[in-house]
């Protein structure tokens, strides 16, 4: 039952704001940059970043969502639902800078699948990775994020849960033991 709050609502907001400014530093007005959130939880991060960037720049960046179900390497090795979510990329990523966005970077396998899925839509000039939480030292693959909300050191069997105001009731990030059942 041990739960540890990694980010509370205020820190959560500050972190997202900082990430926005880091993005602006590299991509200025987003004229050639798009944000793509990985389904299912990365889209919440994108939505927040989009709203904040819209406030700061008075113009929202182009955003999309990407489902990676069919590109996973653990198909038939897991018992969870295999029903895919929606992919919504109604713009060309050809010669664009793409920022892939997810909530938690853990083993890196989701991002690996995400890159495969993304490249079926065209050839971006550059792909970067933004994550809210980076569980460093838990990687299975050589994948690192370019923009990190917060890095945490976790054990493999621990779980990081990101809650969102919309849907979960409040913004926070918690760390808890996986088998403690909430």
């Amino acid at each position, binding site marked *: 039952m041990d739960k540890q709050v990694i980010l509370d609502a205020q820190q959560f907001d500050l972190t997202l704001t900082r990430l926005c400014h880091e993005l602006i530093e590299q991509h200025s007005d987003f004229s050639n940059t798009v944000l793509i959130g990985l389904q299912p939880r990365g889209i919440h991060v994108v939505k927040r970043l989009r709203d904040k960037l819209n406030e700061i720049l008075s113009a929202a960046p182009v955003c999309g969502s990407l489902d990676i179900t069919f590109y996973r390497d653990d198909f038939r090795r897991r018992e*969870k639902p*295999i029903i895919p979510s929606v992919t919504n990329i109604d713009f060309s990523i050809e010669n664009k800078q793409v920022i892939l966005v997810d909530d938690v970077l853990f083993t890196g396998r989701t991002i690996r699948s995400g890159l495969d899925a993304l490249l079926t*839509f065209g050839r971006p000039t550059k792909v970067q990775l933004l994550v809210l939480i980076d569980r460093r030292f838990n990687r299975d693959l050589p994948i690192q994020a370019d923009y990190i909300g917060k890095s945490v050191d976790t054990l493999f069997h621990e779980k990081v849960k990101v809650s969102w105001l919309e849907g979960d009731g409040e913004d926070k990030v918690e760390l808890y033991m996986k088998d403690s059942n909430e």
Partner: protein
Amino acid sequence: MNNLSVSHLTGIRDLTTEDIEMIFKTADSFKDVINRPIKKVPSLRDITIANLFFENSTRTRLSFELAAKRLSADVVNFTAANSSVKKGETLIDTVNNILSMKVDMVVIRHASPGAAGFLTKHIPAKVINAGDGTHEHPTQALLDAYSIREKLGTVKGKKVAIIGDILHSRVALSNIYCLQKLGAEVMVCGPSTLIPKYIESLGVKVSHNLHEALMWCDVANMLRIQLERQDIQYFPSLRDYALQFGLNQELLDSLGKDIVVMHPGPINRGVEITSDVADGDQSIILNQVENGVAIRMAVIYLLASQIER
């Protein structure tokens, strides 16, 4: 609701409404995939599928082959015309020989009703029925219902008339099961010689008047006269049939409402449907073909996900 309730697809009769809805939802995603610049996903890289066609087919075989390839599965094709079946090999022997080459899934079309169901009891691979005689053709019914859902938003509450050779049609039987499970009303229409006795016991309406059926329905699914399965004369002549049960533009215009026109193919132009109707605005015949690939990808994907390694 993690996967289908069945381990093979031999008929719509065995499926639950949830199964059908899961297939549709998965097909939605695949329809998105096949409209991308790169129309292929790597999900089934380690799966080999054998297409066993003991009966002629263009659309269904191509559609299954394309579906498998877009999922990155390996495909072997078999057609009875140039095989050892002609030398007297039995169905099980043929299939077992193919399976010993490490095939995970078998798509079978056969002239004998129950051929696919028979295979499920005798071979360790997944089986998909691509038409067994006059029994069922489940993927066709799924893609028909999916096309109605796409065109009209929902299948529930819609009125669908299946018109033509009901007696020899596996498409009709699978369609009746599928549409009813999704909450549609079904009417069959055709000459009384081509309507099976006791078909009312399936809960469908029966009509022998094309105009009446068209006035009643939201969707008309025109079936082909299956001359190859007709051992005796069921109606005076094709011309007579076309006059009584053929759908033409004039008739369509006289209804005073827009109905959706479908046809599972192959079309006999000028018999059950005229060219202007088949190629007209109300026809979704080519959408059906496109949706066929997405539906078959969904069925293969969902069944393959049950294979343990």
